[in-house]
């Protein structure tokens, strides 16, 4: 059984690596969306021009957006109105219903750098550990984590970025992780 799941993960990994190789940033006139006959296309920025300056990734926009933010390659605005409250929290949550796969570590910090609490709570996730019937089918069909991952944030082919805590080395308790650990 163990062998089987590793085997499958391997196939998925190879598949996404192959995909990664063939795609680069298409020019706007060849991306299948922009109308090449629109004279104003010349005025739009080409993705390659901006994205090639940022820390590279193999999937999505080919940019490690969190690193770009953390290392200040980019400094996106947090708000437009001065009175808007900005809240960033540092709370890791370990989710254990992952079958044989490594446990899922959900980090609040990078998420709340980009997002507001209300983007997830309670629209996508009830604000309580283990209170959400999250599973991989629902995620793959665009719910829970899949509302953003696979749409705007890194895609769902990257299993191990979420399933990042090996069962063999994890000795603590799932749920909210205290910093002391």
């Amino acid at each position, binding site marked *: 059984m163990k062998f*089987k799941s590793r085997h499958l993960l391997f196939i998925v990994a190879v598949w996404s690596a192959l995909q990664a190789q063939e795609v680069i*940033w298409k020019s706007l006139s060849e*991306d299948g969306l922009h*109308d090449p006959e629109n004279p104003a296309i010349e005025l739009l920025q080409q993705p390659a021009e901006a994205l090639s300056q940022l820390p590279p990734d193999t999937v999505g926009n080919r940019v490690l957006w969190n690193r770009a933010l953390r290392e200040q390659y980019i400094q996106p605005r947090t*708000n437009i109105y001065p009175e808007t409250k900005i809240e960033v929290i540092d709370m890791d949550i370990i989710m254990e219903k992952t079958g044989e796969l490594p446990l899922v570590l959900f980090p609040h910090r990078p998420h709340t750098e980009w997002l507001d609490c209300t983007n997830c709570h309670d629209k996508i996730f009830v604000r309580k550990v283990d209170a959400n019937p999250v599973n991989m*089918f629902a995620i*793959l*069909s665009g719910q829970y984590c899949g509302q953003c991952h696979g749409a*705007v944030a890194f895609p769902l082919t990257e299993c191990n970025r979420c399933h990042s805590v090996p069962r063999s080395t994890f000795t603590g308790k799932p749920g909210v992780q205290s910093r002391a650990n």
Partner: protein
Amino acid sequence: MIQGIMPSTMKARNSIKGSGRRLLLISLAGLCATGFSAGVSAEYADVVLNRLSDKNDVRPVIFPHWFHRIRFRCKVCHNELGFEMRAGANEITMGKIIDGQYCGLCHNDEIAWGVDNCSLCHSGKHGLKTGIRGSNQTGGPGRW
């Protein structure tokens, strides 16, 4: 809300025993989902807005997430400015934009160039469907 759009595979899965089988299904679903993206070359997370454009003889609107997220965090649009996180869910019209709503909250000659630059926003090919592009996995149950 959530139950209504569960894929039919959800019902089928209860009859499948053993997590190995389940993992197989999930991996296959993942593979199918990525398979669909092979022919797609649009930049990841571009949004096509075409609820009204084609009907009114203007090119559909292409909204680039990559360009905007370099400048603004998600929370600016999806919390402060109130854009729903679902392609096609916001009832954006040109009148509202000129009134300073939606795109017009920024494209007002102050935060960004104004509404007179029609073809910077209306830049898509005719006939495109509203939705998120460059991607695949959130296409919903119909995809796989």
